């Protein structure tokens, strides 16, 4: 039995959902990563021109999911979500921001996200620095250049940057920027810091 999608399942999309000037656009992506509840979705939502979307992958490979679904209905499968947003920056470049929790067990999703990414912005909660170690390790493992954005939203005094660098074992030239992920300009400034750094690295 196959349920046929009704027209309600596939509503026509508003014109602004489509990529403007898509025929000439080059799509690029930057990852926005960090531990659970650090503010990734908030960050992406504050700056995206579209309502952030999410997509799910069931297990790491569809083939595995297919085998699993044969006959065994209702079996729980691991579902992983990634959130993303979009920014049309010019007539030539459209930037996608992808966010997902940093957990190594979702290898397929990480490979999909990391492949071809310009770089990564790692969101860090100054009160939970240890939670960021795994994400930083993953980003380094995929060979991506990154900047650290300290999501500072509660008004608590910031740790000294030197202490934070030491705690996260950062290289001297890794940018550290403070941002409020709820604020569009603040999020944009953090992204700009990352892109400047990526340009330095590319020169």
């Amino acid at each position, binding site marked *: 039995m196959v349920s046929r999608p009704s027209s309600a399942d*596939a509503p026509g999309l508003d014109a602004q959902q489509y*990529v403007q000037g*898509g025929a000439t*656009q080059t799509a690029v992506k930057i990852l926005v990563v960090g531990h659970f509840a650090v503010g990734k979705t908030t960050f992406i939502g504050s700056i995206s021109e579209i309502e952030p979307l999410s*997509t799910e992958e069931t297990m790491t490979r*569809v083939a595995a999911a297919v085998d699993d*679904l044969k006959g065994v209905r209702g079996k729980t499968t691991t579902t992983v979500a*990634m959130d993303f947003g979009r920014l049309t920056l010019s007539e030539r470049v459209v930037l996608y921001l992808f966010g997902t929790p940093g957990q190594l067990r979702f290898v397929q999703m990480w490979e*999909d996200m990391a492949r071809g990414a310009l770089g990564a912005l790692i969101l860090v909660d100054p009160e939970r620095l240890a939670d960021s170690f795994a994400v930083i390790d993953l980003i380094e493992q995929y060979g991506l250049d990154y900047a650290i954005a300290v999501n500072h939203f509660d008004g608590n005094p910031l740790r000294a940057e030197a202490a934070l660098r030491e705690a996260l074992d950062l290289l001297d030239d890794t940018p550290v920027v403070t941002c409020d992920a709820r604020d569009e300009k603040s999020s944009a*400034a953090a992204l700009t810091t990352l892109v400047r750094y990526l340009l330095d690295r590319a020169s």
Partner: protein
Amino acid sequence: MTGSEEFELESADLVRAYVITKGRGLPDDQQLSLITLLTAAPEQGQRTLHLSPEEQRLLDICSAGYLSVAEIAGHTKLPLGVVRIVLAGLTEGGHLVTRPPVPRARQADKEILLEVLHGLQAKFG
């Protein structure tokens, strides 16, 4: 089964992934990345008659402009792997045209990074 919402969730489970994908495997990663942009090819004519409901649905969404693979998955709420397989089939069948992202290369990177930087500055000051 008490409400219509519950019924819908139950129905979605019945659409098995291998039915939607017609048993095809995952496409080459390079062929359809998350940010490959797609749109419907012009003049579909009679060719769409044999398409499955899911193929038709994805083609419909692509008919009014360009979307990335990730956006198509997000709008349809289908698993990403399933969407990639169906889109690959539609592309092979000539129903969709794609704009793959440029491969990474140092010089191209630099130009694109500059474009990104200027774009962010223009947009957010």
